[in-house]
């Protein structure tokens, strides 16, 4: 693995790269408030399966500097940032795999630049949340005065959205690590999540696209994810039994699953 600080979007971005630089690239995007550490197991395993894996910390997250304009509330800004990173690294026809806001950002990248992409896997994301969670409530949470016990709520709230099939120890590790978030950043991410509506744009996506959702994911309604997949020409949808909001950390072998989806989509594309 190598790690670099790259100037993207006017700030320094912490970017991990795993695997053969000449292998087909895949960009892996983390969830709201979190960082590339969510891919710590999946990324090297994907690299071992023949991918060049690029894992950035989005601006304001992990080891990246804050976005110059402050916490981002528009997921489209993250999508533009990802495309700048792709150009900076000279990635040719990358796949984009994201989870939660990362999944929705991946869909937005596909809306903006399908022709540049090999495929998209959007996990735990739909086209439009229908206003959940409440933006009014989230804006209130931006003030510490209205947001007590943040650590407890993040920990227990994360545990509540991890799937029933995930061993308790791993679920607790996921929840413990989630407490590292910056509340201003993660709340802003969620405002972006709740307000970003891709329903009109998804029919324009031309790259192979696969939406994946766990049936224990309280944040997502499976019917909405299916509806989002149906908006994308040729879009697929997979429902993971016993899995929650963080498939790349919850699946026993997430890299194998993701590699399978990517291989399936890129093979179909080459055949057609």
């Amino acid at each position, binding site marked *: 693995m190598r790690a670099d600080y790259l100037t993207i979007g006017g700030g320094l971005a912490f970017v991990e790269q795993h695997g053969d630089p000449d292998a087909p690239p895949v960009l892996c995007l983390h969830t709201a408030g979190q960082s590339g550490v969510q891919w710590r197991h999946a990324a090297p395993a994907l690299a071992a399966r023949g991918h060049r894996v690029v894992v950035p910390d989005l601006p304001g997250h992990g080891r990246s500097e804050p976005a110059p304009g402050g916490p981002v509330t528009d997921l489209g800004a993250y999508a533009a940032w990802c495309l700048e990173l792709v150009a900076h690294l000279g990635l040719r026809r990358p796949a984009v795999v994201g989870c939660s806001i990362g999944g929705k950002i991946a869909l937005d990248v596909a809306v903006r630049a399908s022709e540049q992409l090999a495929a998209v896997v959007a996990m735990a994301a739909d086209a439009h949340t229908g206003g959940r969670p409440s933006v009014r409530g989230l804006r209130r949470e931006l003030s510490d005065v209205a947001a007590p016990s943040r650590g407890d709520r993040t920990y*227990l709230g994360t545990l509540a959205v991890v799937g*029933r099939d995930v061993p308790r120890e791993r679920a607790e590790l996921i929840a413990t690590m989630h407490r590292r978030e910056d509340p201003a950043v993660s709340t802003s991410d969620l405002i972006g999540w709740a307000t970003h509506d891709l329903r009109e744009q998804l029919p324009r996506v031309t790259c192979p696209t696969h939406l994946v959702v766990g049936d224990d994911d309280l944040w997502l309604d499976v019917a909405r994810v299916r509806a989002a997949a149906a908006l994308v020409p040729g879009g697929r949808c997979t429902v993971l039994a016993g899995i929650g909001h963080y498939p790349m950390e919850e699946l026993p072998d997430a890299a194998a699953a993701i590699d399978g989806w990517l291989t399936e989509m890129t093979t179909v594309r080459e055949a057609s």
Partner: protein
Amino acid sequence: MTELDERRGTTSPAAGDRWFEDFAVGQRWTSPPRPVTADDLADFTRISGDDHPLHAGPDAVLQGPFGVAVAMGLLQRLGIHGDAVLGLLDTHWAYRRPVRVGDVLTLEVTIVRCRRTSSGDRGVVTRHMRLLDEGETVQEGTTTALLRARGAGPDPVVRAFGTVPWAEALAARADLAEDLASWDGTVGLRCEDDEVHLRVYRGRVIEVTRRAPRGATFTLGADAATWLEIVEAPENPFMRLAMAGRFTVTGDGYEYLRLTAALHRLVDAAREIA
């Protein structure tokens, strides 16, 4: 037949007459299937006089109360109620999906609340009743019956959600010393109309009462079926239910959020004693 067997739903419909003391929160029964026929539609339309176009034609929807009537009939055929029943006190009902000719309804009954009346010789038993068609809930609600009591109590407290004895058992079980070491206030817990206040000072519950002098700082409320789910779920479901909007919180919302971990711990205690 032990109470445990009944909770598993293996009781025989011919279990005989049950008095108030023979019911316990968490007991469950499932009825045999009951097909909905064209005669049902015609008969119910005749009885009710409701001939709205919705209730005619090949796609006719049966009047909502048809479901309540069928549910009461299926309940009766379970054989769990006999001469000890003195009357039906109330029905709270919701229509989730239309019922049509050709549906095959089953009834799931769960006892969610048992309370002795103040006279002591009778008790009220609330039954959560769910009508299903092919596994989908079409109608659900609660009905409450008044029954004769065999003795004068005392009655089990560990599932008497929202009562003082229940909250006293909770307070004895839950160690709030660390979570609430810096807190001074009153936690209200409510199940339907039963509300109880836990007066907390620096991590100790100093009083459990129907109503603290200055009221509750906040009150966490849910219906009886939700409280039963809380104690029976495989994992502590507090956050899942909170995120799904299954609780009603009144009072100081900031203090409610502040006490997230303490409430989670109280729910742990409620599950342990239940």
